[in-house]
């Protein structure tokens, strides 16, 4: 696939320019593919742990999305993040794994499995956030409440909710990383 016609690149380019709906579509589009890759590499870890890893990869993609140069091919960037996080997940569970980067490209799309069960660990990490951050992540993520409504419910300005959400997600990644080590 050439980079000009890669629909993921188009979506992330729009997302990085501020289009939140394109960003949601981007994340939804890459998730089944990432899940296929993680399950294929991590069969021994079991389905629930695999989903944890998928969530780790998504969180990493989110927090590192500014490291993609919009004129560079998207997929090598995405697989490099996925590979890094999968290797990390194995290391955390005491297994060393060698993942040639080329393997990732081969895995594509073919293995998108059914949507799995909840990933319990992320729930634990959320419980470790401060109460207000927890409330924001739960409302926005689990209940699907908009940022504006979340702000009204919690008596916060919309901008403050945005900042708090961003901090909470960064904090989640730190907690996940600590947990992995």
């Amino acid at each position, binding site marked *: 696939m050439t980079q000009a016609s890669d629909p993921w690149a188009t979506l992330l380019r729009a997302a990085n320019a*501020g289009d939140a709906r394109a960003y949601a579509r981007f994340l939804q589009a890459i998730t089944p593919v990432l899940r296929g890759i993680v399950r294929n590499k991590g069969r021994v870890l079991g389905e629930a742990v695999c989903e944890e890893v998928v969530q780790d990869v998504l969180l*990493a993609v989110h*927090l590192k999305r*500014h490291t993609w140069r919009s004129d560079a091919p998207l997929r*090598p*960037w995405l697989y490099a993040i996925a590979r890094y996080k999968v290797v990390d997940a194995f290391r955390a569970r005491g297994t060393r794994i060698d993942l040639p980067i080329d393997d990732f490209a081969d895995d594509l799309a073919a293995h998108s499995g059914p*949507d799995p069960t909840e*990933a319990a660990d992320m729930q634990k990490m959320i419980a470790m956030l401060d109460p207000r951050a927890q409330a924001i992540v739960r409302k926005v993520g*689990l209940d699907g409440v908009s940022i504006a409504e979340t702000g009204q419910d919690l008596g916060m300005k919309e901008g403050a909710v945005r*900042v708090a959400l961003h901090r909470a997600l960064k904090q989640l990644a730190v907690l996940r990383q600590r947990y992995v080590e």
Partner: protein
Amino acid sequence: MKTEDLIRSLAADTAQPGRLGVTLAMGLIPAAVIGLAAVWAVLGFRPDAVAALAKPVPVLRHVLTLILFATALRMCLTLARPEGRVRLWPLLLVPLAALAVVIWAYASLPPGTRAMALFGKTMVVCLVTVPLISVLPVAAILAMLRRGAVTRPTLAGALAGLAGGGLGAAIYALHCTEDSPLFYVTWYGLAILMVTAVSALIGSRLLRW
């Protein structure tokens, strides 16, 4: 938490992170200015600093260290991206050129004066000051790398050390009056290598994500 719920939280977070190049410039430029100011205020520039820049052998100190700085810094910016891969051979050009200059200097000095040229008078000052001036530049580069997504932390840390050490040595050279390549290649080189080793160690820990 279901993955679709996580996606919803992520999509709601519309904070736009700044570009890595901007982060780097905002750290590195003040670091260089502070280094220059500190050398000027504490040690002083050499009286003939401007004249020395016009002579080939003394100015090589700046040229070699700044080439090292620029080459390693470029590599750091590449390694800040997760898929970034670098070819390291361009880094060899600086030590090779330095070696050639050392051989030339060794051959052109009368036998009795070589040891004096090598050890100079300010070896200790050089070995202490160059790493000190390098601290802020290295920190600025590591901070940029940490905001990036480095998948080779030790290598990226080492390159940050080479770049920061190179810049530190280039700044120190404005003070230093030891113009023999036997001196500056040896002791600047050693100082830069020390910075590189420490930075590699820090990188291997700090640059995980």
